[in-house]
């Protein structure tokens, strides 16, 4: 990020001048809408911007330059896995045969996409040690919902109707408890053990005939592998509950640990983390879900099937009555899945294992270097990410993690994830990924070192950071108190929505 100046521009609405633009669409005949009843027609056209292509393009290009992105620099956002997004994947997803295929096209026209989806399911099942995979969920959170709805269907199919609770460690992603609620379960939050791991005794005490499932992230959101996972899985299964694995951190363990083999019954995978599909400023992603034998009958419909003659097809509506049903329209975020497929084929078995090895190596290397700069609460080896903390720095200088994060922006880096997991005071969750060079990792640690020095000699510089970004710290309070969520032509940016 270079020095800003005033680089903020007007909104597209402010750039609008009546009569500009056009030339993209042929004109319809004058009477095109004459057959539509008047009471169905719009009386006043929408007030959308009118701009010519050069202005439109510059508007967006200038906006793009206000963003930080993987394409522009190091993005060590823990838990989010901002690894390199290979360029060939963008090319592949735009191949005309993929892009122009209608999702209701008969199977015989869709053999290429169906084959790709089927092969991707097989590959993900192999990586996760699962029996089968659905590619339909549009994102990890929707994958979680799919998984927990299958858990619900499983218990109901056994007339086991008393299971109303889902156990979740307090270090879990917020999506876990939110998913449990959405699927009609009560969340029971279990405090972490002092070493950051799951507290097996606390889980045992909470498990019982009312437990539907436990949701475990492994490696955990602290970047630690739950070494007592076997005991936990045995205890879960002993009470008739199922084990859900949040696969957000699968990128650390490919070729090393297959959750399905270890005994997890269901797992979602964030392809925009482990398999490098771009985050797009907040999506689209895709959240495939793998299941073991128990949940196989409940997979959402339609599944992708391979016939004995080698042809592929989508399951028909109602073909598998045990299914939880449809969780979205059509087959899935296919263009995202093309990218994930390309990533897996580029790496193969050896490459994926190397991805995890290098991600873990880089994280431990950074941890060893950061240890001399900030607190690093957990001494043991981490997986693909690690937690640092500004607790000591705060005690000594009053500088908080938020200030450190904002100052990193001035020094050219995207900050790590901050204040997550909730269980560590003044947390910074740092995830370097496998695609950053050792020089980049070193430069980031040097930036942290410089900030800690500044904290002692010039704390005000940090309190008021960032200084070089397009905007500085924002007034988030008034944004929430008087929400202005849309441009209004008459009042523009001056007046909030009427309440």
């Amino acid at each position, binding site marked *: 990020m270079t020095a800003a100046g005033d680089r903020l521009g007007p909104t597209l609405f402010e750039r609008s001048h009546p009569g500009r633009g056009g030339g993209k669409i042929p004109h319809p005949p004058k009477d095109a809408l004459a057959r539509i009843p008047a009471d169905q027609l719009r009386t006043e056209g929408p007030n959308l911007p009118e701009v010519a292509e050069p202005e439109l393009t510059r508007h967006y290009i200038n906006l793009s330059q206000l963003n930080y992105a993987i394409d522009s620099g190091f993005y060590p956002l823990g838990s989010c896995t901002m690894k390199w997004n290979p360029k060939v994947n963008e090319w592949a997803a735009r191949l005309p045969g993929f892009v122009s295929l*209608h999702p209701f096209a008969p199977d015989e026209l869709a053999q290429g996409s169906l084959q790709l989806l089927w092969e991707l399911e097989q590959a993900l099942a192999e990586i996760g040690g699962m029996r089968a995979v659905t590619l339909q969920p549009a994102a990890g959170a929707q994958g979680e919902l799919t998984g927990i709805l299958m858990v619900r269907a499983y218990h109901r199919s056994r007339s086991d109707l008393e299971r109303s609770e889902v156990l979740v460690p307090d270090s879990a992603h917020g999506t876990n408890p939110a998913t449990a609620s959405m699927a009609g379960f009560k969340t029971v939050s279990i405090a972490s053990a002092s070493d950051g791991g799951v507290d097996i005794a606390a889980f045992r005490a909470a498990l019982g005939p009312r437990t539907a499932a436990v949701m475990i992230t492994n490696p955990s959101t602290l970047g630690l592998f739950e070494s007592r996972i076997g005991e936990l899985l045995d205890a879960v299964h002993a009470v008739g509950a199922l084990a859900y694995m949040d696969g957000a951190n699968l990128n650390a363990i490919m070729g090393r640990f297959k959750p399905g*083999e270890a005994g997890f019954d269901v797992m979602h995978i964030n392809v925009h983390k482990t398999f490098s599909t771009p985050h797009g400023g907040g999506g689209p992603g895709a959240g495939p879900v793998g299941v073991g034998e128990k949940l196989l009958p409940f997979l959402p419909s339609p599944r992708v099937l391979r016939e004995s003659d080698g042809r592929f097809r989508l399951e028909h509506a109602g073909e598998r009555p045990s299914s939880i049903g449809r969780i979205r*329209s059509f087959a899935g975020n296919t263009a995202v899945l093309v990218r994930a497929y390309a990533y897996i084929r580029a790496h193969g078995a050896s490459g994926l294992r190397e991805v995890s090895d290098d991600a873990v190596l880089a994280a431990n290397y950074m941890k060893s270097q950061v240890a001399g700069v900030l607190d690093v609460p957990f001494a043991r080896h981490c997986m693909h990410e690690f937690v640092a903390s500004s607790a000591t720095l705060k005690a000594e200088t009053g500088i908080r993690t938020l200030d450190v994060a904002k100052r990193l922006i001035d020094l050219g880096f995207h900050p790590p994830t901050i204040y997550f997991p909730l269980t560590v005071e003044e947390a910074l969750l740092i995830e370097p990924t496998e695609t950053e060079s050792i020089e980049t990792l070193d430069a980031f640690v040097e930036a942290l070192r410089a900030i800690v020095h500044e904290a002692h000699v010039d704390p005000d510089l940090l309190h008021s950071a960032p200084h070089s970004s397009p905007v500085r710290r924002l007034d988030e309070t008034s944004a929430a108190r008087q929400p202005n*969520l849309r441009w209004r032509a008459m009042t523009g940016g001056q007046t909030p929505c009427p309440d």
Partner: protein
Amino acid sequence: MAYGPHTDEDRAAMRKAIGVASVDELFADIPEAMRASELRLPPPESEAELAGRLQRLSERNRVDLVSFLGAGVYRHFIPAVVDQILLRGEFYTAYTPYQPEISQGTLQTIYEYQSMMAELTGMDVVSASHYDGATATAEGALMSCRATRRGRVLVSRGVHPHYRQTLCTYFGGGDLVADEIPLVAEGPAAGTTDLAALERMLADPERPVAGVVVANPSFLGLLEPMAQAGRLAHAAGALFVSVVEPVSLAVLAPPSSYGADVACGEGQPLGIPLAYGGPYLGILACRESLVRQIPGRLVGMTKDVDGRRAFVMTLRAREQDIRREKAASNICTNQALCALAASIYLGAIGPHGLRDVAALGAARAAELELALAEAGAPRLHSAPYLNEFAIRVPNAHEVHRRLLDRGVLAGLALVEAEPDDPSLADALLVCATEVTTADDIEVFARALCDEIERQHQLSLPGLAEDAR
């Protein structure tokens, strides 16, 4: 490794700094008994090999047919500028804008998306995006349950079957009920939502209704009595959830004009390719009073400490990372880049261009209706439509299949999407858009005429066996 920078020397240096002899030591926390079996996947491929594989796979799809298939997602012209901008790495390789100081590009584009969709729908509040039309509709129905504290919604059978099925799946989580409002069976309103049935269903005092969900145009392409349905819903204390198609809103009455409380729909027609199912764009909008019920991210305008206008994610107390089990929804990642595509598309074609897209589709559809009727396949319904309608074709499923061999994708055989509705057994759902040409229509009509003639021959006594 395909994309990583590390040399063996780099790895050795890192191991030395950590103090391990082998990377295996870093995985020592994985218990011996739980270590993975061998990963059985194909070997790595160079970019050149990979590109060839993907090219060949893509060519196994057939996208060369003359197509009249819509049924929820539509083929439209996408101006070149849309993809050029989407390929800016600063947009597509950025994360969710949690650090607003270095995410103003993404934040402002989302605010502008919310604003454009608000103009199009007439609604006050638009979420930063949802997954697709089906999930946006399911969430819209859930909003009505939260807002009214009632547990039953009525969904018209004119709503896309995938949306109805998705809604049922989502409702399966809570103890919520979704009942279907039937369609009028006969007469001039055949195929549209049965208002008399709706009124009866709303009248049951034992089972109060949270929301009424109706789509305009409907799955069958028909224009629905939205104003009347909305009035009935409100009279019973229910919210009115309208499912809309965004291009049509350039010419059709917006949800705000008939009092919709929630508007949802599929944003794919706004510059997003078909791509065999996605990613698409779930549009979710509501009136101001429901803002705390809407799931997903919202971007608002604010100022920075220097007083400069800036944008930030706001009202975050609805969201899963803050509220956890009490959140409005579990949604985290949405479809931000698709929302950007829709914004660029709308910016590129402008309000007049959007109106032209809608009106030209309507004009082409009228030509299509005429040509298909002459070919022997009249409309199944008589209520008004915009650019999509069902036609009556004997043995529709078989005809549809045979037309593929003649290079025509004759819309959707409705029996596939609505197998339980006998009135749709011999019907095809066809659409036209601005990319449909007179030649396309002629090719379709001629081929269909031949096939109908063939079916007619087969149905004559004594001839069927010979012909088969």
